[in-house]
């Protein structure tokens, strides 16, 4: 082939403790091509991006960008300048102006003094290239998410990036914003910029990209022209099996309301009303930033409750007190395992027993024997893989850490409602299906479960009822049998 490859990756492998994140991955990018990368969470997409942009070094394999071997570059600690990444969570400096963001690190300077006129002139040029008609003097914090995204793209162009990686660029955009983004992408393409496009939205992937590479469990399943694929094929390749097999089948008896939330409002959510029954898994779907995590924070008392009433088993829950929420039988596994979940310096045992510690104590003195035997039992029951209970938890794999966090609540004999926020984020497929099995077993045993997830397949596969949120409000409620991906997405966007 006499193709003009701007980027070419051969045999890349990357290991994390207990996980093989990438396994002999080959990937290439033609100049002026849009190449989509699809796969489930944990398939290795973000690891690959981070290797390409120089955040990680690969353990094996070679990676050439524009003829340069980037392993040599990144091992010296330089972030690769040829590759611009537009991350899912945008990291523009909000209090700076558009111009300062766009020309970040590349300010026109004479004798050490910034030439502001020149700054605004250049910035306006780049803004024009991405079709953004705003003043370069606007503060970035006043822009919409779509505009911020375009700012990031302009920034990448200003830095002469030859490859632009877009990570879920449309997850928070409206349909009109998406079509104008696509216009910008096509224009960049015609100017010879190559784009790696990562998205869960397969229709968009098939529309915008020239080729698609499917990753699963750290391996490339296949690469094909977008015209040769349809959505069903893609899904089968991504999941590697029929959806039915991933989610346990079960028939649950759903009865009496355990959790009732009426008109819950906080700084970030408005008038949220829903209920959960014993033995039921209730899903919360929606786009990134739809207010689902903020809803649980208001429910659990982390954020200040502005209005509304919460009943647990008919008893009102006092506001603004996580302690009270725990006492009344609510458990919360956060989406942010590292920052809000684990105690990295403590042992597996201490991590698991911490929330229910009071049940092993008599007038404040812990019975280590009872604590130890309970923890031992649950570790065995949930097959958490750890060399010993004294092992510090940060040496466990992500999946086992997540199971330990579930165990932290399940060990509490008083637990009535378990809220899990993105319970399978960043863990491999095997651990994922284990967590699905655990959750549905628990529901079968009568626990009420609230599950927040951005993966629609997960929500549709696991939940009995589904609420959809947008802008801090509930915009739809569906029964499992009456919902599909399109309906959920519609409620999440419109």
């Amino acid at each position, binding site marked *: 082939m006499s193709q003009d490859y701007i980027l070419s990756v051969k045999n890349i492998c990357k290991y994390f403790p207990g996980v093989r994140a990438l396994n002999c991955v080959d990937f290439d990018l033609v100049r002026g091509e849009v190449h989509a990368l699809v796969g489930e969470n944990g398939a290795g997409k973000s690891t690959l991006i981070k290797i390409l942009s120089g955040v990680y070094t690969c353990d094996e394999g070679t990676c050439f960008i524009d003829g340069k071997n980037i392993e040599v570059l990144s091992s010296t600690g330089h972030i690769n300048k040829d590759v611009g990444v537009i991350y899912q969570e945008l990291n523009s400096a909000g209090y700076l102006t558009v111009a300062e963001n766009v020309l970040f690190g590349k300010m026109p300077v004479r004798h050490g003094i910034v030439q502001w006129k020149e700054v605004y002139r250049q910035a306006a040029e780049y803004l024009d290239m991405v079709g953004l008609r705003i003043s370069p003097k606007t503060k970035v914090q006043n822009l919409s998410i779509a505009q911020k995204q375009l700012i990031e793209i302009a920034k990448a162009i200003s830095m002469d990036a030859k490859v632009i990686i877009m990570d879920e660029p449309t997850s928070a955009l409206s349909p009109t914003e998406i079509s104008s983004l696509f216009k910008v992408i096509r224009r960049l393409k015609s100017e010879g910029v190559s784009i790696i496009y990562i998205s869960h939205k397969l229709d968009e992937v098939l529309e915008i990209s020239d080729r698609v590479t499917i990753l699963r469990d750290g391996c490339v399943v296949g690469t094909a022209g977008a015209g040769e694929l349809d959505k069903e094929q893609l899904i089968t390749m991504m999941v590697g099996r029929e959806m039915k097999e991933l989610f346990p089948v079960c028939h649950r008896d759903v009865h009496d309301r355990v959790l009732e939330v009426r008109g819950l409002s906080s700084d970030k959510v408005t008038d949220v009303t829903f209920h959960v029954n014993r033995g039921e898994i209730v899903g919360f779907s929606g786009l990134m930033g739809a207010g689902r995590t903020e809803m649980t924070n208001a429910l659990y008392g982390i954020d200040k409750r502005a209005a509304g009433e919460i009943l647990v088993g008919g008893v009102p829950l006092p506001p603004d007190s996580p302690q009270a929420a725990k006492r009344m039988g609510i458990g919360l596994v956060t989406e942010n395992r590292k920052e*809000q979940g684990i105690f990295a310096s403590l042992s597996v045992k201490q991590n698991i027993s*911490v929330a229910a510690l009071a049940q092993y104590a008599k007038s404040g003195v812990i019975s280590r024997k009872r604590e130890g035997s309970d923890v031992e039992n649950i570790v065995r029951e949930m097959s958490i893989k750890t060399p010993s209970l004294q092992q510090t938890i940060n040496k466990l794999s992500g999946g086992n850490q997540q199971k330990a966090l579930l165990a932290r609540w399940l060990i509490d004999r008083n637990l009535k409602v378990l809220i899990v926020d993105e319970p399978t984020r960043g863990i491999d497929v095997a651990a994922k299906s284990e967590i699905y099995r655990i959750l549905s077993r628990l529901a079968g045993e009568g626990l009420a479960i609230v599950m927040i997830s951005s993966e629609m397949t997960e929500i549709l596969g696991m939940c009995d009822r589904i609420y959809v949120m947008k802008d801090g409000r509930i915009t739809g409620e569906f029964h499992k049998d009456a919902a599909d991906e399109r309906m959920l997405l519609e409620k999440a966007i419109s």
Partner: protein
Amino acid sequence: MTVKTSNRQSLLRKFGQSEISVLLVALIVLSVVTYLLKPVFLSQRNIMNTLRQISLSAICGFGLTLIILAGEIDLSVGSQQAVAGIVSVLVLNSTKSVLLAILAALLAGVVVGAINGLIVTKLKINSLIATLGTMAIWRGASMVYTQAVSIQSSVDAFQQLATGFIGPIPNAVVMAVVIFAAIYFLLNYTTFGRYIYVIGGNQDAARFAGLPVARVKMAVYIIGSVLTMFAGVLLASRMASAQPTAGTGLEMIVIASIILGGVSLSGGIGSIVGATIGMVILGVLQNALTLMDVSSFWQDISRGVVIILAVALDVLRKERVAKSLISDQKLAREEVK
């Protein structure tokens, strides 16, 4: 056979890696060197004097260890000692009761600790700043109240408190040992102790686990101040007077010894045993320098060096943890293969 040797090796390595063994070795080396240079170091009189000296700062240090383990700091301990001396000597002189004098100082400790705790938990002010403020306030208040003049104790029995002996052992040492035992129990066997480690380790996660974060912080500040005030009473007792300058610079010495003893300044990591050994090392060092007629100015300099070494040790420790993570990673990689 091979298994046995490798077992022994790993045991040895474990011993070498454990913080406490390193500290003990440092303490022994320091003591032996001092003894060789100044044999008087191991005389009973010197040992008891040094231990009494160490006990006074250790009683304060036990409380501060709890605060640091919980992820906070208290810079106002030195100033609190001045307040403790003034309160106790004033009450002593007007009531002639040593017991009431102690109780009054402990009560003042509850108030002072609660103030620090409230500023940190309710006003949500960074504890470094908050206690830097209260440090200046208590010192200033002590100076204002006494007009920078010391207040003499008028009761002879008061002096016995810190200078008396039980058998051959100074009172202060006995008290320090009792308090050490209580703190050891608290940290290792109670829910409160576990919460201190947990909150210091990751305050956000503790909140999400529904733990009483603010209450535990209030409690460590109050315990810390009560112990500091008690040490302040002992100091006043030893000098038979309340000094408005008492405890100046104490916070730095105590914090340095605690860090030296392996307690992480960011909270959640460390033990009371390590912290105590750290305090003993710094106390012995001071005694050694005094015996060798090193001027107090040079002692300040050497203490500064030890502080920096202690923090450097902390950094090295963290690097070692990171390295062990990497070697685990390599192991995992081989397993996968």
